[in-house]
C-alpha cells in the first residue's frame, strides 16, 4: 500500500460517501429545492470519481454542463413553481410503496451479485492507459472519426429539445382557462 494508493482510497471513500448520501437526500427530502441542491452535490462527487477514472474531459463536462447549466435550469423552474406546497411525499396504492422499495432493492442486489461474481475473475486487472487517456483531444478525435454520426445526431437532439422547450413555454394570445385537465 503506497502513499498514493492510500490517498486515492481516502478520496474515493469521501466521494463515495458524498455520492450515496446526496443520492439518498435527493430521493428523501420533501423540499424540492433541497433535493436539487443535493443532486448538485451528487454531480460534483461523481466528477471526482471521473477524475479518478482518468476521464478528465467528462469530469469537466459534468461540472460545467450538468451541474452548471442543467441544474441551474432545474433551480429556475423550482423557483418558479415553488417549493412550499404540501404535496404528498408518496401515495398511490399500498403495494406501490412497498413494491417500489422491493424492486429497487432487488435490482441493486442482483447487480451487486453480478459484480461480485465478476470481480473475482474478469474485473481484476484494469488495462494500462496512456497519459492521454480521457484528454479532450482524444475524445474530440473520437467524436470526429468513429462516432461522427453520434455527434451529429446528438446535435439534432439538442436542437429538437430546444424547439420543444420553446413551444412548451410559449404563451398563447388567447389563454383558455381550464387547462389540460
Amino acid at each position, binding site marked *: 500500500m503506497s502513499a498514493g494508493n492510500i490517498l486515492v482510497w481516502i478520496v474515493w471513500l469521501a466521494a463515495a460517501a458524498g455520492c450515496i448520501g446526496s443520492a439518498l437526500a435527493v430521493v428523501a427530502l420533501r423540499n424540492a429545492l433541497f433535493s436539487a441542491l443535493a443532486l448538485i452535490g451528487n454531480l460534483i462527487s461523481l466528477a471526482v470519481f471521473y477524475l479518478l477514472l482518468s476521464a478528465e474531459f467528462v469530469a469537466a463536462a459534468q461540472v460545467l454542463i450538468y451541474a452548471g447549466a442543467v441544474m441551474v435550469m432545474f433551480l429556475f423552474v423550482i423557483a418558479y413553481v415553488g417549493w412550499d406546497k404540501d404535496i404528498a411525499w408518496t401515495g*398511490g*396504492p399500498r403495494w*406501490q410503496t412497498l*413494491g*417500489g422499495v422491493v*424492486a*429497487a432493492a*432487488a*435490482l441493486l442486489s*442482483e447487480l451487486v*451479485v*453480478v459484480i461480485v461474481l465478476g470481480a473475482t475473475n474478469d474485473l481484476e486487472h484494469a488495462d494500462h492507459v496512456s497519459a492521454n487517456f480521457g484528454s479532450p483531444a482524444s475524445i474530440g478525435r473520437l467524436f470526429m472519426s468513429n462516432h461522427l454520426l453520434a455527434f451529429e445526431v446528438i446535435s439534432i437532439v439538442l436542437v429538437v429539445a430546444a424547439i420543444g422547450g420553446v413551444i412548451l413555454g410559449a404563451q398563447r394570445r388567447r389563454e383558455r382557462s381550464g387547462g389540460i385537465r
Partner: protein
Amino acid sequence: MSAGSHVIAACAWVCLLTPLAAVCAIALGGNRLSRRAAGYLATGSTAVSFVAAVTALVATLDRSAGDRSRVTTAFGLIETHAFKINLNLLVDPLALVMMLVVSGVGTLIIAYSIGYMKGESEERRYFAYIAFFAFSMLLLVEAANFFVLLVGWGLVGLSSYLLIGFWHERPSAVAAAKKAFIINAVGDAAMALALFLLIQHTSTLDFAGVFGQAVLLGENAWLINLVTAGLLVGAIAKSAQIPLHTWLPDAMEGPTPVSALIHAATMVTAGVYLIVRAHPLFEQAPHVQQTAAGLGAATLLATGAIALVQTDIKRVIAYSTMSQIGYMFLAAGIGAYGAAMFHLVTHAFFKALLFLGAGVVIHALGGEQDMRKMGGLRKRMPRTFVAMLIGAGALVGLPPLSGFFSKDAILSTAISNGTYGKVLFAAGIAGVLLTALYTFRLLFLVFSGEESELVRKSLAKHKGTEGPRWMTAPVAVLALLAVGGGWLEIAGLWHPFSSFLEGVAPPFAAEPSVAREWLLSAVSLGVALGGIWIAWTIYSARRQQAPRAPGALTEKLYFDRAYDLLFYLPAVSLARRLGAWFERPVIERSGEEIGTGALAGGRFSAAIQNGLARTYVLLVAAGVSVIVLLFLVLR
C-alpha cells in the same frame, strides 16, 4: 344363382328401401311438398313394397319346398377376426308372411290416414314417421341375423314413440310415449344381453349359424335358458304381454291409424315373430317356452276381463289386441307355429278393421271416444256398422269369418298336448267367452239403442257418406279380408298356409286329429254365442242394469299402481335428492364459481391498470429484476 334368386334379392331390397326413400323425400321436401303429396308418397311407397313382396312370394313359390330361403348381403357392418356381422336380408316363407302383412295392411292403413289426418297442421311429419315405421318393421322381419333384427326392433320402438307422442302439445300423449319407450327399453336390454351371450358362445349372430348350433347350445341348460329368457322378455315388452303390458292402453293417445298399424297389426306382433323365428332355441329350453305359453294365457284372461269395464272405444280394442296376442303366445309356446302365424295374419285383418271402423265413428263424432256417450249409430252409419260387425264376428270366431279358423287351430292344438296343454285350453275357452262379451258390448253400446244426444248433434251436419272416401275404402277392403282371410287354412280340407311355413317352422306340438278339431270348433262356437247372448241381454235391451265393475278391473288389476310404487316413485325421489345434494351444490355452483372466479381474477388484474405512471415504472423494474434473476440462475 338362378334368375329367380336374383329377383327375390332385388325384391327384398326394394321392399325394404322404398319406404325409407319416402321418408327422406318427405323430410327433405319439407314445405315444398304439399300435405297431400306427402300422404301419396307414403302410401305409394308401401304399395310398392307390397308389390315387391308379392313378387318375391311368387318367385319363392316357384322354387322347391326345401329351397325357399334366400339370403342377400349388402355390406359388412362389424368385422373382427372372431366375429362378423353383415347387413343381411333373409327372404323365406316366414319373412314373406310378415312382409306381406306389414306392407299390405300398412298400405291400407296409410291410405286411410290420408283421410283421417286431413287438415292436421303437421301432416307431413305424420307421414314421414309412419313411412319410417314401415321401413323399420320391414327391416325387423327381413333381418337375416339377430343384430339387424335388433336394429329394426329398436327403430320400431322409436317410431312408436314418435307416433304415440305425435300430438306433442298434449302432456298425456307425451307421457304415454315415454312410458311405451321405457318399457320397451327394458325388453331391448334383455334382448341385448341374450345376444351378448350368443356371441360369446357361438361367435355369430346369423340365424343360420345360431340355429345350426342350437342343439349344441341346448346342452348347457343355464345358457340356453338365459338366452331364450332374454329373447322372451324382449318379446313380452314389444307385444305388451303381462307383466310388461301397461304401455299399450296408454298408447291409444296416438292417432287411430297409428293404433291400428303399430299397436294392433304389426309392431306388437313382432314378439310372436321373434319366438317363431328363434324356435330352434326355444325348443331347447322347454321351461322358457312353456312360460311363454303360460304368460300368453294369463294375459288373454286378464286383459279380456279388463276390457269388459273400459269406457273408451279404443281402449277396449287395445285390450282386445293384448288378449289376442296372448293367444298367439300360447300357440308359439306350445310349438304350434303355423297356428300362431295364421292367427297373426287374420288378427291383423280384423283388428285393423275394428280400429279403422272405430276411427270412422270417432271422426264422425268429432273426436269423441267415450262409448257411454254413443248409441244408435246403426241407422245413421249402416255401412260402418256392417264393417264393425264383420270385424267383431271375426274376432269372436264366428264361421265363416277368418278368426274362426285361426283361433280354433290354436285351441285344438292346445288340448292335444298334455296336461299343461289342457290347462291352456281351459284358459283359451274362457277367453272366448270374455272376447264375445266385451266385443259385442262395444258393438251394442255404440251402434244399437236410441241415438244419444252427441250422435244427434254431430251427425245432423252429416248428409250422405259416412266418412271421406279415403277412409271408407280401406275399411271395405279390410272387411273383405276379414271375411275371406281365414279360408287359407281349413282344418282337414286344405292347409296351404301351414305347409308354406313348414319348411321354416315345423310344428313342435302334436297335431290334433281332424275330428277333434271340428268338435272343439263347435264347443268354442257355442261358448262364443253364449257370450254374445249375455252381452245382448245386458247392453242391448236393458242397458241400465249392467253390473257394477269390481274395483280391481277398473284399476287394470293394479299393475300401473304397482309399477308406480316400485319404479317410478323411487326413481323420482332419487332424482330429486341427487338434484338437491349433488347437482345444485356441486355442478351448478361450480359453474357459478367459475364465473365469479373469473370476474374476481379480472378485478384483481385490473388493479394494475391504475393509470399511475409510477406503477408502470414499478412494473418495468420488477420485470427487469425478474429477467436478470433468470439470467443469473440460468447462467
